């Protein structure tokens, strides 16, 4: 690991004696303060009745510190790496390093947090020491370690991934914000930890993944590892294909598939309880999320359309070919995957088929509008770089305005016209004509967008036709 040049590079700066002594001194001071305060409470106060209670209390506090180091400070460091390189004007050198994407990713994750990880390692030793002293169960300790590791990976990889997506030229870290978040979260997290240690509920609480029963903390760790895996794939892709979207067509489909498989695993047992329609509904709605969000990270730019038109063998059928390669089709693919799982979930839960049908139709029409806004941005951006702002504003309006109008006119039916309001299909008792209205509204919204998109496709067809015509003419001119 030390052979990784990026880790080595950060080792020089992070472990420079002047810096290490200062931050190390701060940590030592915090540790001594915590020990002093708690031992004083034990000796003179009444909060700790026995030494076991004292150790449990110390465990909680050092666990909070561990969480702060690994879940707040480390991700904050990861989130500013690329921005810092750009601001320092050294990013070109970083990009040109002949290191694999994996080496770059690991180098940043570990190297940038080297000092933090060393302190966290020492702190973890304190946690384990006080955990044993507080006679906490081995099962609880193992589960906590799992959660700690899994969420650390997930949060740091997500932070790194978003830092690569967003090349803002700023050096400012979000440490002050994190401190505020930490202060507010301190109480609830501490309370939760104390409670779980006291009642020993958490480590014995189980949940199901399909038919497999496991402690809930393991399942949370598994979900975190799922997020970490895809964030890692995203990081590798951005480091390798710098100018491509985060998701490829295949990647977005695979993500949707694995996401729904995982979601299905968490909901399976509840779907089997056929007397309650809510699990199926929640599954449907959570399953729809990627269909709306993933296309935003899988946008194919106009360059790809130009390439498609150039590489097509003939002009005939080019319009259709452009449509197949478009962002619209990408979104449609995700929806089809969702629909298959939604039907399976509905059958398993013996849910109301009509409810699913209306949900699917309204959601599909709403998603079409969103995908069409994305597609319009992609194909018109070369002509007008700022068009994304206008269409983004229209998207926000499209989502929010029905709620505003519904509030003003005190008519909940208007919520159906927003993509977020599609949940009103459930238990709504709306008649079919009412439920058809948002679909027609969305189709009307699609009309101008469709015209704009088609215009650009036809522009490409015209250019290609002209090129072919010129090539056909050349031999005749020469002869």
């Amino acid at each position, binding site marked *: 690991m030390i052979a990784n*040049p*990026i880790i*080595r*590079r950060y080792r*020089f*700066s992070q472990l*420079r004696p002047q810096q290490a002594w200062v931050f190390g001194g701060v940590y030592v001071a915090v540790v001594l303060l915590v020990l002093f305060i708690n031992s004083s409470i034990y000796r003179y106060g009444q909060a700790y009745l026995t030494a076991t209670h004292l150790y449990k209390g110390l465990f909680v506090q050092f666990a909070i510190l561990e969480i702060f180091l690994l879940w707040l400070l480390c991700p904050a460091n990861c989130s500013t790496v690329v921005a810092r390189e750009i601001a*320092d*004007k*050294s990013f*070109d*050198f970083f*990009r*040109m*390093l*002949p*290191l*694999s994407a994996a080496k770059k990713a690991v180098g940043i994750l570990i190297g940038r947090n080297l000092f933090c990880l060393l302190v966290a390692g020492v702190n973890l030793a304190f946690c384990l020491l006080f955990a044993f002293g507080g006679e906490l169960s081995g099962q609880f300790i193992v589960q906590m370690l799992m959660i700690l590791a899994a969420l650390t990976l997930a949060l740091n990889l997500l932070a790194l991934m978003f830092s690569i997506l967003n090349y803002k030229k700023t050096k400012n870290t979000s440490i002050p914000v994190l401190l505020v978040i930490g202060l507010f979260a301190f109480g609830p997290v501490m309370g939760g930890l104390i409670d779980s240690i006291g009642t020993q509920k958490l480590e014995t609480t189980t949940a199901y993944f399909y038919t497999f029963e496991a402690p809930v903390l393991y399942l949370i760790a598994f979900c975190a590892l799922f997020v970490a895996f895809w964030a890692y794939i995203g990081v590798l892709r951005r480091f390798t294909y710098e*100018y491509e979207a985060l998701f490829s067509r295949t990647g977005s489909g695979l993500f949707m598939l694995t996401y729904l498989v995982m979601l299905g695993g968490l909901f399976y047992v509840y779907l089997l309880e056929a007397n309650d329609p809510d699990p199926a509904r929640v599954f449907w709605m959570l399953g729809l999320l990627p269909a709306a969000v993933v296309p935003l990270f899988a946008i194919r730019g106009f*360059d790809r359309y130009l390439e498609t038109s150039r590489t097509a063998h003939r002009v005939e059928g080019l319009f259709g070919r452009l449509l197949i390669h478009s962002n619209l089709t990408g979104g449609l693919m995700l929806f089809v995957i969702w629909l298959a799982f939604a039907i399976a979930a509905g059958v398993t839960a013996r849910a109301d088929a009509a409810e699913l049908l209306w949900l699917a139709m309204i959601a599909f029409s709403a998603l079409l509008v969103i995908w069409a806004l994305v597609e319009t941005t992609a194909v018109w951006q*070369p*002509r007008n*770089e700022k068009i994304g702002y206008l269409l983004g504003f229209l998207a926000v309006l499209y989502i929010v305005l029905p709620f505003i109008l519904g509030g003003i006119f005190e008519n909940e039916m208007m919520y159906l016209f927003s993509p977020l309001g599609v949940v009103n299909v459930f238990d709504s008792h709306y008649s079919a004509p009412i439920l058809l209205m948002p679909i027609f509204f969305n189709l009307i919204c699609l009309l101008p967008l469709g015209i704009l998109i088609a215009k650009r496709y036809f522009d490409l067809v015209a250019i290609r036709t002209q090129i072919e015509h010129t090539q056909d003419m050349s031999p005749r001119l020469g002869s």
Partner: protein
Amino acid sequence: MGILQLNALRKEFSSLVAVDDVSFEADSGQVIGLIGPNGAGKTTLLRMLATLLPPTDGTAVICGADLRKKPLLIRRSIGYLPDFFNLYPDLTLRECLDFFARAYHIPSSEVAGRVEAALKTVALDSKKHSLIRHLSRGMVQRLGLATLLVREPTVFLLDEPASGLDPMARIQLRDILRRLAREGKTIIISSHILSELAGFCTHLAIMNRGQLVMYGSVEDIEQQIAGQQAVRVKVLGEATQAEAVLREIEGIEIKTADDGTFTLICPGGPEAVAQVNRRLVAADIPVVELARQKTSLEDLFMTLSVEKNMHIS
């Protein structure tokens, strides 16, 4: 096959064509001066070759690797120095070069020696333990060059490497580049200081508005200049009569005419100049001054910028 082959390389940004179908080849040991006004596309071209910008169209092969298909392989063979850059301010010079050496797979046993040698070459060995943030602009520029020297790639792409350097450092830079060329390295160097480039480049590539206006060896370009030399003629008396005589001479182009002083373009060398003299004397026009003007690289650049693409093999 040359070390570097560009074939109709093109880069478009929305409606702007920054690099317009640029093609040329370069062999090992060649130093190519890339010159052109601001906005000519020099930096864009270099960044494409450095694999930092994907081309819109066209191809390039560098050290046998295709630019589009094997950028990682190309990165191992090239060294790119941007026009505006900085290096890691929290590292010392030695640590920075150590990082680059190891990142470019220099064997551990050789790293320390190469770092020392590179620092010595750019005259920064006395500052090896200083933090980069404490260096001046010129020192950072030299350190940037050192990051390339420590690993000595096959191809050097240098974008305004002399900017920020004092005259002594510029001379040192020239010596370094000459040594690298003797060792068989291929160097593409862009600069606004044409006289500097003419001193040690083997080839020149002149760009304007994204197009390669002219490319060739320095000798060939100089011959081209000689063939298009300018002649200054000053006459007494009736300027219009003199102008009429000059216009009758075949092949002569009157570039400027100002109250009896003419600047002529005379293709054909000394014979053409003698012809001008004979015709003016025969027409009884007193010639006060007749001198050949040595066309500098700047003049050539200004002239060629407005002409069509010209290629000299």
